[in-house]
């Protein structure tokens, strides 16, 4: 009897212990799941729900208005399409230029000439700085009256080019691209550098045996092997473009007119400044849809390559 009791007692102890063991993992992930997961999913659900209403963004009342917000955004010639186009131009220009310049720098730095680590550290530094502060410096330097850049142009005999870089609708968007390129070229450089380092030395040995010189090796061996790296940069460029807000707010605020309106600046203005929370949420939903399609596309691409 005693033996049975002690045996059963032991079993209970073990099962309660294993019950505790089973709950521990959940306790470990719970704080993150609540603060990060639940918060973000709640925000997404809230955005989707509010996009079908005339919510003002600050009060508790909102009434259902169906797809009105979406039809307003998706009429041809709407500000939304203008902003989408600006995002797209920005995406293409910045990704292409940053990749080209970053690759050029990486190829040179990989030769490990004296001083190359200093150059690498210097070009990467803007990546770690605040976009608004870099944008503020550009906004100051490119100020048409007292900024200094137009003065420099005049000094080197290019005074004819001087004008209001952020104020002219023809150059405003490209100037914003320049600020982004200034900040992010170092990032492309580092990624390509890592990609170059992962190419096995034997490949170069083989090229050498085949009699390929420096330039031939570069164009026929190195560049084709970096295709995966380039794909990564394109994906990150798309994500970055959908996040772009700081530089635009700081330099042009979306103007002149709507010449540099981005999806996020439009969303911010409509929701926070014009108290049209419903419409703003609809923009948010469309941005989310684009973002999700992009990441599904990326997954599809990377699966296909395997």
């Amino acid at each position: 009897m005693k033996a049975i009791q002690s045996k059963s007692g032991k079993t209970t102890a073990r099962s309660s212990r294993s019950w505790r063991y089973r709950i521990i993992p959940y306790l470990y992930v719970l704080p993150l799941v609540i603060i990060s997961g639940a918060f973000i999913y709640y925000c997404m659900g809230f955005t989707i729900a509010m996009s079908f209403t005339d919510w003002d963004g600050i009060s508790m009342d909102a009434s259902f208005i169906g797809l009105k917000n979406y039809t307003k955004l998706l009429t041809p010639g709407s500000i939304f399409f203008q902003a989408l186009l600006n995002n797209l131009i920005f995406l293409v220009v910045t990704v292409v230029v940053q990749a080209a310049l970053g690759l050029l720098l990486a190829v040179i730095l990989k030769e490990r000439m004296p001083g190359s680590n200093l150059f690498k550290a210097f070009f990467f530094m803007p990546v770690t700085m605040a976009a608004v502060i870099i944008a503020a410096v550009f906004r100051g330097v490119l100020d048409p009256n007292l900024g200094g850049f137009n003065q420099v142009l005049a000094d080197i005999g290019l005074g004819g080019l001087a004008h209001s870089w952020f104020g002219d609708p023809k150059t405003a968007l490209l100037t914003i691209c320049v600020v982004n390129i200034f900040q992010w070229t170092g990032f492309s450089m580092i990624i390509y550098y890592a990609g170059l380092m992962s190419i096995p030395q034997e490949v170069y040995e083989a090229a050498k045996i085949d009699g390929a010189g420096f330039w031939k090796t570069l164009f026929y061996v190195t560049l084709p092997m970096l295709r995966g790296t380039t794909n990564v940069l394109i994906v990150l460029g798309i994500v970055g473009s959908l996040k772009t807000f700081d530089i635009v707010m700081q330099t042009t605020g979306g103007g002149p007119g709507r010449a540099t309106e981005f999806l996020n600046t439009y969303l911010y203005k409509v929701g926070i400044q014009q108290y049209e929370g419903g419409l703003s949420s609809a923009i948010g939903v469309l941005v989310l849809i684009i973002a999700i399609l992009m990441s599904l596309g990326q997954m599809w691409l990377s699966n296909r390559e395997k």
Partner: protein
Amino acid sequence: MKRKLSTTIIMYIVLFIFLILWLIPIAIAFMKSLNINGFGNYLWVITNPDINYGRAVFNSAFISIATAVIVILLTSLAGYAFSKMKFVGSNVLYFMLLACLAVPGAAVMMPEFFTMKTFGLTNTYTGLIIPMVAFNALQMLLLWRNYMDGIPNEIIEAARVDGCSTFRIYWGILMPLSLPMIATTGVLTFVYSWNDYLTPLLMLRDKNLYPITLVATSFMDGRNHTEEMMAEMYAALILMMIPSVIVYLISQKWLQEGMTSGSVKS
């Protein structure tokens, strides 16, 4: 691979052209910051109560350090659980969390602001730290899980045989083994939070709580009227860049590793 002398020279020329292009805006800003009053402009910025430089640096530092510490704790715990423990639904949960990486924070700014306002957390540090933790934690979770996957299971088994509790294993064994990961995720979160502009823009009206990014923008407006104002503005911007440069110089290695590790793998 043979490299001719001419190629080496061309490479240095290209590097120096880049260097000059990248230095132009910084050089103009620095030279102009010394206009009229010389380094007096810097003194003016530091002592100006409207800018409140010291307070802005403190606000940025406090918010960023708090965010980084919380993110390290949350993501190391969760990374440990996802990597080393078997539990029902772990894969689904992990996938659902990582799916949030695709969400651009700006797209959900309306509910973010509204929720914090409802809980009375606008104009508080907490109201800034919660969204910053939420959006930074996912990338760090990815890094932590990969790192924990690389720690051999035998270490944990041995500790369990010796009678260590799960938490003792985490705190006493895994965390001391994870110092490089603590540094990488800590520095990354710190820098991302320091540079965040949208979250404080949404949450703060009280100028006493403004971090550097908000001071930089609110200070810019209407500053382009006289040479002296421009000089002071440049001095302010350079002073605002200095903390970032210091952090970069100290933590360069971890920043480069952290920012590239996620992207090169995929």
